[in-house]
Every structure is written in C-alpha cells, then in structure tokens.
C-alpha cells in the first residue's frame, strides 16, 4: 500500500475544492484510506494519519474512529508520536467517554519520564482535560512535581494542580504543603502559576484564606514581589510597553483583593503598594489600563483608606475621559462600583463624563446615573439635583421610559415638590427643546403649579412667577415645532390641571383647550375635546378629577430597589434632610427610607451588598428597620404604617422578587453553643426555584455582649453563595437583641443543602472562634 499522503499535501488538496460537495468527497476518500491504514496497525504512519484526522475534525467532520489511535500514539516512545497523540486526545477525547480513562496510565508514566518535554505534555493534557477520576488517580504525581526544583515543570504542575482542585475540590488540602516556598522562586512562570494556584485555594476555602493570611504571611510576600516588579528597571524578557510583567501584576492584584477583603490588617499592609501602582502606572496603552482596572477593583473591594478610594475614583474618571472605544467598560465598571460611600464623588465624575462623552454613550450613561442615584442618593435634594443635571445636560438622550420613573420619584418626594417644580420651570424657561426634560417639567408644573406661583420655597430662594407667565411658557411649548406629540400631550394635560390649581386664569385655560379640540393631532384633539366637555358638562367634577396625585406605588427603574448601605459620608447627609432625626424616632418621615438609613450605623461593610431582609412575618418591609441597629433607638415594635410605597428589598439587581411570606418552610436552629444561638429561616423565590434566601438570627443568652461578631459560610462546589451585610457586629446579652444577616444560596442542581459555618467574636475579653457543619436543612429549603 502506498504511503499515506502527508498532512500539508492533504491540506493543500482540500483547499482546492470548489464546492462543499467536492470537499466532502475528498474527505471521505481520505478517511477511508486512513481507516485501512489504522487497521494495518502501521506504526510509522499513525502519527501522520492522526494529524490529518485532526485537520478534518477542525473542518467539522467526524473523527471518532481516531480516538484509540491517539492513545496508541501517546503510548509510543517517539516524542513526535506523543506530541500528536496528546494533541489528538485533547481534541477528540472527552471525559464523558470511558475510553479517556485509558490515558491515565500513560500519563502517569509520562509524568515520570526522563525528558521534561514529555512530562510537560502529560501535565498539559491532564491540566486541560483531566476528568475527576484521572485527577484523583494522578494528583499524587502532580503534587510531587509541584515540589521539584525544575521551574519548567513546577509552573506546569501548579496549573495542573489548579485543574485538579477545580475538578476534585476535596483534594485541595494535599497541595498545601507544596505551596510553602512557591513564592520564593525567581522564575516568573512559576510565580504567575503559583499566584493562580493560591488564588484558587483562597477563593474556594475560607480556611485556606485564613491560613494564608495569618500563617503564611502571604500579603507581605506578594507586596514584595509586586514592588520589585514596579521598581525594577527594564527587563526585556518580561516587558510589555514599558511595564514589567503585567500579567503577573494583574494576578497579584487579584489575589491581594481576596486577601484584603474584610480584613483590616491585610488591607493596611497592601495600602502603600496599591497607591504606588495606582500612581505610577502609565495609562497610555491598554496594558497599563489593564493593571489600573484590576487595581481599582482591588482598592474598592478591600478595607482601604479613604485617600486610596479617592485615588481609585480619580483613575476611573481618567478612564472615562480616555477616547478609547473600550471606555464602555470603564463606564460600566464605574456604575458597578458606586455605593453609598462614594456616590457623591463618583457622580461628579460620571456627570462630567456625561457632559463630554460621545453621543453614543449618553443614553446609557444617563440611565446608569438615574439607577445609581436612586439606589444611593444621600438625600432627596441631592437626588433631585442630580436628575435635574442629567435632564439639562443630556435631556434629549434620556430614554423615554425614564420619564415616568422620574415623575414617580418626584411625586414621592413630597417635601421637595416646590423646589423641584421651581428648578424645572427655570430649566425650561431658556430652552424647551429637550423633550424628556420638557415632559417632566410640564407634568410637574401641571401638578404643582400652585406651589410654583406661591412664592415660597424652603430649599432655595423662591422665584416670583405669575400664573400668566406659567401659562405663557406652556402655551409656547404647545405651539413650538420642536415639541413632540407626546410632549404636547403632557403639556395640554398640565394646562388643564392648572385650571384647578390657579385662581385667576380659568378662562384662559378654557380657551386654550377649546382651540386644540380641532387640532390635527388626533391625540391632542381627543384630549382637548374631553377637557372641553369637562368644562361644559361636568364642571362640578373638575376639581375632583384634577386633584393632586397621591404618592405612587414604587416600581423602580429596573424593577428593584436596594437600601443604602451607609456609614460615614451619608451620616452627614441626614442633617441635610428636612426632618432631622429627633433623636428617638427618625421614622416619622417614613416616606423617605433613604434618609432613614442615613442615620443608621451598620458595620461591618461588605461594599456591594446592602442590608436587606425579606420580612419573614410577611408584613411591610419597614419591619426591617426594627432589625437594623439604629443608633437612635432599638425599635423593636413595628413602625407606624404611614402610606408606604411597599417596595421590596433585594441585594442584586438581577434577583427576582421574593414572596414575602415564609411559605411554611420550617426554621432550624443551626448552631447553639456557649450561649450563642443561630437560627435560620428560609424563603424561596417564586420566580427562580434555584434560589433560597436564608435569614440568620444570632442571639446571645449570656450575661455579656458578644462583639465583633463575624459570620462566614461555605457551601459545596455546586452551590453559589452570597452573604449580605449583617445588621450589626454586636449581639447584646440576655437575648435582648439579635444580629440578622441574609444569605442567598443558588442551587441550580437542586442538591442537598449543606453548609459549613465559621463564627468569630469577642466575648468576656477573649477571641472566640468556632466551626460547625449545618446539615439539618429542611427539604423544602432546597428541593
């Protein structure tokens, strides 16, 4: 039989095919030849044949019959064979088929081969596609290689270990000893892969994380390495556009983030280096920005000093000004990082961006600002001001659906009505071309026209405007060519409302309305005719029909609201609100939930997760405030039920609304030792069956308070866990109060819920720590 054609020749031949059919024919012919060659067990050409098969596989043709041949190649002594064999295995085999297990022995042998490149092939294959069984069998070999002094192998072993851990998390412990000296290496490959390995371990296990923080002094080591990278001179081997090993820098920053999160000591130890990286990194190229991006994420996530946070915000501001088309990322990141503490600073940057950015970004930016303002506004006035600024700055880019939301927001800010309508009036006086702005303004003028002409305003110097002047401007809008049909609709209705709000100009309103009853615009005509009829036949009903709008049900811009997680900055904002906390009951101005939380002192802070507690007793969410540790008073009784917009709390914008009744899932006592009792109550989402919300309540029956209480939880790999901020860090003695905290568990595979919890707190002068397993979850909580 003639020798099988070479790979390159086959490729060339196939490329000459002019039609799909022709190609298929060539492929089939060659496959047949290859098959018979395989049948002859020809060792010489097996490699060539498999290579050709791989090419055809890439074109989309089936190549299963080559699987066993790959295994034979792997078992061969020739390096060429092994190279193609392993490649074939990675491309053609996968862990779903049992045949892949036949590789295990070969890999084991090759891991111990005398040639490091063969060992490398084996490590690579195992590290890319090793199944759980293979990993279990070969973990020992990998661990051995992790300790070798050969840096070529060591770096590969580290990444292989990462894969093993991902596949079989229980094996993580066995790699711990080998990690001891990993960071002492000079070799950047080993350093990089070691950092990846350490990151994987710390992310997966809070115990590991604690271990690396305390016992291994990981943070100082990482800081040292990072410092060397920045300070050292030009190193051609690792340089990218003037920056030394950006890949390693980024990975170190990411690991630092994990180590510094919620840990004061670690955060402090990395403060300086973060500042250094932030200030010294060049931003002219993508590589510098990549590092800064990671740095900003880290700064915002750890317990950094305020100076450092300001630096991070500045960097974001600079990103936004960058003309690169990739700034959309920066914008999205900026919005993601806004929280109660930095909202003022961030908004300044974002508003500046809104003003100066390309039109294509303005709509998204405006929407983002609205969302962020709604979530984190430190005061009503700031909120209204911010909205005003967006409307005036980018009023024509604001999305249509934002208008009703804004109107609702304004309606619900009762004490700001005069201020708002005054500002809106002033805004459109000069220019009424921006439709969304004009729509909101018209609506408000219609609603609050009486306040506008009253000449009284508490927030700022009142303007003096007459009823006629108001009607003038509204009429101009009606007539103007610039006004869209929708806008004119708003305006006409506004004018109509003023017939009851104004005292002197009813006739003028009547005249305007009757003129438009013959308008060409059908929508306007209909409205005008109806209003006309109202004047003529139902005048007695007019005042009632046009009455002031009540406070509306709050449906927020994206369907959900968050409560402000606040401390520090927003506390001062409380002083700005019109109803200062009277010391005992700041809750009297119950409409303004945001202001209320400005008065709370919630610690510790998990920056992205605001406090939330779906009320398990099914009442108004204001009962939540009874659980928050208000500095003013421990409100244990339910709050007076003033007309409350019953909005629902949630930690994540993407989370579905929860049923606010416990739906009969029994609670459990998860922990009860030494006077500390922790109960779990459960809720299931009625729209996403994979989500379970657990509310923990920790109580203390001893005679002394438990302070600095931190609750941590870990779940098996198939679950995802989100821990929101606790209500406080102190559990008062004698069961006189509790700490509540919400845990969200995502359980897509509907597996039996298990949890390991770790509790740390100070009690009677000593630091207590305890671990426990919670396995008594009721089936209804996870099935």
């Amino acid at each position: 039989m003639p020798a099988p054609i070479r790979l390159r020749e086959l490729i060339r031949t196939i490329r000459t095919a002019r039609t799909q059919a022709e190609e298929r024919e060539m492929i089939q012919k060659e496959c047949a030849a290859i098959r018979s060659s395989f049948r002859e067990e020809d060792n010489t050409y097996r490699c060539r044949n498999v290579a050709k098969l791989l090419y055809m596989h890439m074109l989309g043709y089936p190549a299963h019959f080559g699987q066993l041949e790959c295994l034979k190649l792997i078992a061969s002594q020739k390096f060429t064979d092994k190279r193609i064999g392993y490649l074939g295995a990675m491309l053609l085999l996968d862990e779903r088929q049992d045949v892949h297990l036949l590789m295990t022995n070969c890999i084991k042998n090759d891991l111990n081969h005398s040639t490091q490149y063969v060992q490398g092939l084996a490590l690579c294959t195992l590290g890319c596609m090793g199944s759980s069984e293979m990993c279990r069998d070969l973990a020992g070999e990998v661990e051995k290689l992790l300790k070798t002094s050969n840096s070529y192998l060591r770096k590969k072993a580290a990444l292989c270990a990462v894969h093993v851990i991902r596949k079989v998390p229980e094996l993580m412990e066995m790699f711990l000893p080998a990690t001891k000296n990993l960071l002492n290496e000079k070799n950047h490959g080993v350093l990089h892969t070691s950092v990846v390995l350490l990151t994987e371990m710390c992310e997966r296990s809070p115990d590991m994380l604690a271990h690396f923080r305390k016992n291994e002094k990981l943070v100082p080591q990482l800081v040292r390495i990072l410092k060397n990278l920045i300070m050292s001179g030009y190193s051609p081997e690792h340089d990218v556009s003037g920056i030394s090993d950006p890949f390693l820098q980024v990975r170190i920053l990411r690991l630092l983030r994990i180590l510094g999160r919620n840990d004061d000591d670690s955060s402090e130890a990395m403060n300086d280096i973060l500042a250094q990286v932030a200030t010294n990194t060049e931003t002219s190229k993508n590589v510098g920005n990549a590092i800064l991006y990671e740095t900003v994420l880290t700064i915002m996530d750890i317990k950094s000093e305020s100076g450092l946070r300001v630096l991070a915000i500045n960097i974001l501001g600079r990103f936004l000004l960058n003309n690169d088309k990739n700034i959309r990322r920066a914008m999205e990141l900026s919005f993601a990082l806004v929280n109660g503490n930095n909202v003022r600073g961030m908004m300044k940057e974002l508003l500046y961006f809104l003003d100066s950015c390309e039109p294509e970004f303005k709509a998204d930016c405006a929407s983002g600002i609205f969302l962020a303002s709604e979530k984190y506004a430190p005061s009503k006035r700031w909120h209204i001001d911010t909205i005003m600024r967006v409307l005036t700055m980018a009023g024509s880019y604001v999305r249509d659906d934002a208008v009703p939301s804004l109107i609702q927001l304004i309606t619900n800010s009762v004490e700001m009505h005069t201020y708002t309508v005054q500002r809106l009036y002033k805004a459109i006086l000069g220019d009424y071309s921006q439709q969304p702005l004009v729509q909101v303004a018209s609506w408000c003028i219609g609603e609050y026209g009486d306040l506008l002409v009253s000449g009284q305003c508490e927030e700022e110097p009142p303007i003096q405007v007459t009823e006629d002047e108001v009607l003038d401007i509204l009429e101009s809008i009606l007539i103007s060519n610039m006004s869209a049909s929708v806008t004119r609709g708003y305006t006409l209705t506004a004018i109509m409302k003023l017939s009851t709000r104004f005292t002197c100009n009813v006739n003028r309103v009547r005249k305007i309305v009757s003129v438009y009853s013959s308008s060409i615009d059908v929508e306007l005509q209909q409205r005008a005719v109806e209003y006309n009829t109202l004047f003529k036949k139902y005048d007695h009903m007019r005042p009632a029909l046009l009455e002031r709008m009540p406070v509306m049900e709050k449906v927020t811009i994206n369907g959900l609201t968050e409560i402000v997680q606040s401390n520090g900055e927003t506390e001062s904002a409380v002083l700005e609100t019109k109803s200062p906390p009277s010391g005992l009951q700041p809750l009297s101005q119950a409409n303004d939930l945001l202001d209320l939380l400005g008065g709370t002192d919630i610690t510790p802070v998990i920056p992205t997760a605001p406090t939330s507690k779906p009320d398990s007793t099914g009442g108004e969410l204001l009962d939540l405030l009874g659980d928050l540790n208000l500095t003013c008073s421990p409100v244990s009784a339910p709050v007076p039920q003033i007309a409350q917009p019953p909005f629902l709390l949630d930690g994540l914008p993407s989370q579905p609304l929860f049923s606010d009744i416990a739906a009969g899932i029994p609670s459990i006592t998860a922990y009860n030792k030494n006077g500390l009792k922790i109960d779990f109550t459960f809720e299931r989402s009625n729209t996403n069956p994979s989500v379970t919300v657990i509310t923990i309540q920790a109580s203390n029956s001893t005679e002394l308070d438990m302070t600095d209480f931190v609750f941590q939880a870990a779940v098996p790999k198939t679950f995802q866990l989100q821990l929101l901020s606790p209500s406080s860090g102190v559990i008062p003695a004698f069961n006189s109060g509790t700490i509540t905290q919400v845990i969200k568990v995502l359980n897509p595979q509907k597996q039996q819920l298990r949890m390991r919890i770790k509790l740390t707190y100070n009690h009677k002068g000593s630091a207590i720590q305890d671990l426990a397993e919670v396995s008594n979850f009721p089936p209804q909580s996870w099935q």
Partner: protein
Amino acid sequence: MRFMLLFSRQGKLRLQKWFLATADRDKKKLVRELMQVVLARKPKMCSFLEWRDLKVVYKRYASLYFCCAIEGQDNELITLELIHRYVELLDKYFGSVCELDIIFNFEKAYFILDEFVMGGEIQDTSKKSVLKAIEQADLLQEEDESPRSVLEEMGLA
C-alpha cells in the same frame, strides 16, 4: 478562560481550544453562534462584549479573529494582552505569521498555545522562555525523524 477560537472573516475555524469539558454538539453550536456575533461587529466597536453568561474578548489581526471567552471575574483588558502575546509568539515562530501559516501548521499553533496557556491560565509570562521550550521540543521531534545510527551516536561517523 473558558475557550479560545481563531477564525477567518469567512467564518472558517482555524483553531479551537476548550478549557472546560463540553460536548461536541454543544461546541459546534457555541462556535457557530459566537462566530456570527463577532463577525457582525463593526470595526469601531468595543473589543469586549457580553455573550450568554460570559465575557468575550476579541481582536482582529489581518484576516484572523482571535476570540477568548472569559468568566465574570476575569480581567478583559489583560486578556487582550494575552491575545496579543500569543500573536507575538506565533509571529516570532513563523516569522511574520499570516493566516496560511496557521492553516498549514495548525498543530504547531496548538503546540505553541499549549506551551503558553494551560487550563485557561498563562503558564509563562516570558516570551523567550515559551519560544525556547517550543524550539527544544521541535529539536526532539527532529531527532525522532532522523535517528542517528549507532556509529553516529558513538561519534564515529
């Protein structure tokens, strides 16, 4: 990184490296879909996009698209650098690499990638180191192909 794809403007796949076990059928579907999405992008658009539950980072070099799918917590900007580094490695190896090189030497492209990245993470951040390893491995291959005779081994011929 979950996977990396190289494909031409005409939608021909030139390389696919998967770092997460996926069924063949699913791979085909994902590849087809993602190629469509990326090929529809205009030149001025951002190099990053959100697709399914992943982030996709892509860059076009001449006639080839280099496309990486990464997870939520991965850094897109550094992934761009990763792509660039891979292209540099190919360029150094092939000498002014073009799509044809990758078509005719696809196995080499894989070998280089496998020396640079493992399990979705970078193995070595030094260009020199990666290229040296490939060079040495190639030498081993050559030795296979032209086995020295016993006399040669002894230095007598």
